[in-house]
């Protein structure tokens, strides 16, 4: 590794190109790293940063397994009978619902929920300065809290010690993922990710389509068993003939209530533009203040709230995980604290711009 840059060129083999310096990755200026490799939160990245999940994937494998297993049983054992005796639309409807469920589940799990990147050291220092200069006994809120008036409601913005910034409204720090997430709803173990601003619509689609799928499968299995037991054979023999249906019946029966309940709850949240976090904490209800305590973010119309939450513009990921880190000459290896890396890339990208601006400034001032 030490001698790969200062290779004495043998004049006799001048025509052969020098080998690509892939061995000495650390010294090569061409080695590029992406920002996800130095991401400070507890997330895991795949496909070179395209896919991300929380480090604790929770029971996502179980969720996928249950859905795939039950649906396969349905398509293999119930559909042939139902197509013959009822209608051939059944596998089609089932197929569409299944596709929606799986796609929205994967999108909820693998996308950025709305993580806010941590403040750069310069910003953190600036905020500290502001906090120090404003902290005095006469200042009513404690220094690490800022109060903002939103829609005639006083909202307290807390300072996040991990991310070194004042959290925007509706943002919360997830301790499992160690990230501040915008419009934080909750961390869902079934999905293995936080549910926040950017993936709430995927999550909602997932639970709604899952409720439809579960109810649909339950209905079909019940119909199947009912039809089978019709010829005077009885339910027991029907179950014996199609044991898979029995299994599906059990799984669907026990899960449909909770899934339907969850869908109903989230429909209420969507219609009132609330997050689970706010609802649980009772942020906007039951305030003893004199002013009318209401949700300042609501548009006061169920239709507008639904449109805003589900069909509103989808902001891009702020963490830019596939962005390139500028090639450092002496890359701090993984053990280096993330702050140094952040300062490195922040300053570096500015320095390139600074160079060109400096030239321009020089030419202007003569």
């Amino acid at each position, binding site marked *: 590794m030490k001698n790969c840059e200062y290779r004495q060129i043998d004049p006799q083999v001048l025509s052969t190109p020098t080998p690509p310096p892939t061995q000495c990755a650390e010294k090569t200026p061409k080695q590029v790293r992406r920002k996800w490799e130095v991401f400070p939160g507890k997330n895991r990245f795949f496909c070179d940063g395209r896919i991300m999940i929380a480090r604790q994937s929770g029971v996502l494998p179980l969720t996928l397994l249950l859905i795939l297993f039950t649906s396969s049983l349905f398509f293999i054992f119930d559909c042939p009978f139902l197509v013959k005796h009822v209608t051939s639309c059944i596998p089609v409807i089932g197929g569409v619902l299944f*596709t*929606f469920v799986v*796609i*929205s589940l994967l*999108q909820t799990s693998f996308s950025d929920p709305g993580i*806010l*990147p941590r*403040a*750069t050291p*310069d*910003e953190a220092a*600036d*905020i500290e300065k502001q906090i120090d200069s404003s902290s005095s006994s006469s200042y009513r809120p404690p220094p690490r809290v800022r109060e*903002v*008036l*939103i*829609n005639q409601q006083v*909202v307290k*913005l807390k300072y996040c010690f991990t991310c070194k*910034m*004042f959290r*925007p*409204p*509706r943002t919360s720090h997830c301790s499992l993922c160690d990230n501040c997430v*915008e*419009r934080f709803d909750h961390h869902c173990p079934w999905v293995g990710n936080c549910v926040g601003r950017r993936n709430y*619509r*995927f999550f909602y*689609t997932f639970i709604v389509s899952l409720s439809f799928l579960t109810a649909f499968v339950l209905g079909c299995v019940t119909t199947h068993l009912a039809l089978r037991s019709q010829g005077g054979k009885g339910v027991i023999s029907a179950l014996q003939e199609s044991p898979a249906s029995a299994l599906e019946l059990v799984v669907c029966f026990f899960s449909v209530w909770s899934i339907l309940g969850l869908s109903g709850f989230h429909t209420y949240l969507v219609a009132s533009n609330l997050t689970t976090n706010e609802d649980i904490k009772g942020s906007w209800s039951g305030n003893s203040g004199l002013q009318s305590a209401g949700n*300042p*973010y609501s548009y006061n119309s169920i239709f*507008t709230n639904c*449109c*805003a939450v*589900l*069909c*509103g*513009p*989808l*902001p*891009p990921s*702020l*963490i830019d995980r596939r962005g390139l880190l500028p090639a450092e000459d002496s890359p701090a290896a993984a053990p280096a604290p993330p702050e140094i890396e952040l300062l490195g890339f*922040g300053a570096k*990208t*500015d*320095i390139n*711009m*600074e*160079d060109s*601006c*400096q030239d*321009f*400034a*020089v030419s*202007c*001032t*003569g």
Partner: protein
Amino acid sequence: TRPRQASVAAKVFIQRDYTNGTMCQFQTKFPSELESRIDKQQFEETLRMLNNLYAEAEKLGGQSYVEGCLACLTAYTIFLCMETHYEKVLKKIAKYIQEQNDKIYAPRGLLLTDPIERGLRVVEITIFEDRSTGSGR
């Protein structure tokens, strides 16, 4: 590092303005550190334009609803191949900032950093040291 590089004298951070909710808006208050470098009018104009552009990105209107509904019908797979309205406006913003830097801020020894590079938390303005020959303009 280039020997002629001007050193950074200070950095000013324009924080977000949350009075309209979670929409991305920045405070237009003129920071005192910039008083000697640029006039208030110019600065406020830049920020106002930025705020308008961000409002456009997050606007709830016909186009965003069409995009949203279409996305829902395709199980959101459309996001994998299509550039969203928000991303298009962000590109516009990047171009605007570049333009402002070239025309107005660089000649005054200032540099605006695109807020997207700071996670839309702040507008970072880097102030470069005055040349020792004076800022003769």
